[in-house]
């Protein structure tokens, strides 16, 4: 069955200007947070985005929803390019594409009640009458697994996991089709993470939602995603179905990333050989020539210094940007 593509990203770039010099006047340096990212997400599917700090995964989420203006590239959502649409005309786009943030403490207004928090996006989008909004807020509280009685309380009265549920209810209130979740469970305890992840899965089924799930926790990303995209220094290194990428990772970076994830089993964990990557991710200012991963890669060849590898489909649905797999 061919599924409908809901979001298509083409060659997306986001450069930030860095200030240098004593007075910040000689600002010639560019931080290339996203440096040509392309991918697509099908309706009702989840694309997981993984990578280390500095890989550009959070910038990606924020640029797609236009919290940052892209430097170049296209954001095609349901057939329309939103990359250059004027801020004032983004309202319908932002109703349909919602975002969930990492920190459940910072992303809820402490002075509003839960009821008001969930109703606010409905007000902004002129949906429903005030009475209907109140009803809707209560309904979505129940949908995310909270109680109606919670509606009158303030954020500080809730635990981290409950706050993340409130954030989820707020995102759902405007009946979006696409949700970008940036590390939604990283700040939570393991037992609570499982609760929230299950809620994510239930909601996807109930409302046919599509997710872009950004996280550094590879085990969690594998669990929730249909497809996974591995990013490094603002570029896509590998994309494949979540099963393929773990069974059969092609890119040396993906191999190292997966190998570094600890497995909760002492017999396996104490006996297996891990690939330990030396050093840290390079800086986004001085990106190495050719392949940006080559400095930490143990298979570096001559060509890696000179030519930047492009993302190519090696097997059906499995693409990799690496010279090792040139046909």
């Amino acid at each position, binding site marked *: 069955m061919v599924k409908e593509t809901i979001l298509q990203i083409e060659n997306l770039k986001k450069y930030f200007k860095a200030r240098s010099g004593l007075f910040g006047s000689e600002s010639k340096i560019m931080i290339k947070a996203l440096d040509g990212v392309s991918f697509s997400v099908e309706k009702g599917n989840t694309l997981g985005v993984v990578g280390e700090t500095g890989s550009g995964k959070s910038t990606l989420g924020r640029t797609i929803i236009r919290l940052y203006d892209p430097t170049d590239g296209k954001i095609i959502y349901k057939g329309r390019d939103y990359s250059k649409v004027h801020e004032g005309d983004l309202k319908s786009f932002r109703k349909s594409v919602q975002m969930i943030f990492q920190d459940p403490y910072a992303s809820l207004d402490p002075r509003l009640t839960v009821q008001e928090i969930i109703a606010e996006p409905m007000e902004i989008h002129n949906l429903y009458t005030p009475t209907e909004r109140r009803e809707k807020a209560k309904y979505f509280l129940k949908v995310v697994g909270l109680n109606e009685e919670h509606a009158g309380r303030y954020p500080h009265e809730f635990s981290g996991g409950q706050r993340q549920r409130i954030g989820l209810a707020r995102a759902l209130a405007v009946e979006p089709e696409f949700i970008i979740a940036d590390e939604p469970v990283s700040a939570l305890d393991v037992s609570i993470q499982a609760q929230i992840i299950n809620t994510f899965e239930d909601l996807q089924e109930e409302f046919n939602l599509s997710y872009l799930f950004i996280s550094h926790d590879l085990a969690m990303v594998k669990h929730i995603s249909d497809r996974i995209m591995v990013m490094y220094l603002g570029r896509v290194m590998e994309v494949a179905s979540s099963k393929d990428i773990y069974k059969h990772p092609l890119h040396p970076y993906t191999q190292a990333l997966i190998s570094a994830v600890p497995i909760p089993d*002492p017999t*396996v964990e104490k006996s297996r050989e891990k690939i330990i990557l030396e050093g840290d991710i390079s800086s986004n200012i001085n990106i190495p020539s050719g392949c940006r991963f080559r400095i930490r890669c143990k298979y570096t060849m001559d060509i890696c210094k000179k030519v930047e590898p492009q993302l190519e489909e090696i097997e059906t649905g499995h693409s990799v940007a690496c010279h090792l797999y040139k046909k």
Partner: protein
Amino acid sequence: MEPVIDVKNLRTEFKTYAGVVKAVRGIDFKIYPGEALGIVGESGCGKSVTGLSIMRLITWPPGKIVDGEIILDGKDILKLPESEMRKIRGGEISMIFQDPMTSLNPTLTIGFQLIEMLKLHRDYTDEQAKNRAIELLDLVRIKSPKEVFNQYPHQLSGGMRQRVMIAMAISCEPKIIIADEPTTSVDVTIQAQILNILNDLRSRLNSSVILITHNLAVVAGLCNRIVVMYAGLIVEEGLDKDIFDNPRHPYTWGLLKAVPRVDEEERERLSTIKGLPPDLIAPPKGCPFAQRCSYAMKICFEKLPPYFDIDREHRVLCWLLDKRAPKADRSK
């Protein structure tokens, strides 16, 4: 074999406006030379407070160690005057914290901070201390130790800072290194580097390691013995294989099942532990986990269970192990 440290009936409390929080409510454990002990549990279970209590870094107000003994070399360190405790801290027991940025002084060079520590505990000349500091940076696999020696913390990445913290912690070859969530704020690739270094140092220096973490998978690779804490109590203790292959406490079951595995074949729904941990201002009189436990019996709400010994190494705080309890099916 004599244990390096013997913690007996440790109780630590914090005074707050709402009441007295009983963070650690009477725990016992021992650590033997060269051993790596993992303390696992969720936020608020008392695992970090246990680490801080051993370092005697609980300050009044608001915190206080209200009962118990911590025996190191036959002496109860809870009774030592602060001047002697200062020699033990860093010398005999050292600690690595979660956030390396806030635990290093931003205004002093890495070298200065290492030398300060070395000269406090050892009779080194300036020259000797400097050489030792560079040697230590090399030991934690910092590529250009001489350069890093003259750098400030902000010039280093998170992973490098954490390695500097480890260098500091091992500088006086302590008997015990307490690592409190040492890899929580770093990437998986850096986490693998740091765990590798910790394991290497443990065998090389024959120090014991206490690894405090919420991540069971991290413990699996490094630790040979594991303590599971919940609501200020040890609910299960055993060798690594006991906890992972034959866990007996429903909370341990829940923790193990709640984390997805990167090597799992089919996607299964995650099992959750419903509800939240109890309020430690007024802890329940029975088993603290009873509220969230799907096996809870009447007695669980009324009386705190005793420890049941499965064997010499493995003990569990749960009524299900009583002879009269029905057989619990773990897969439920």
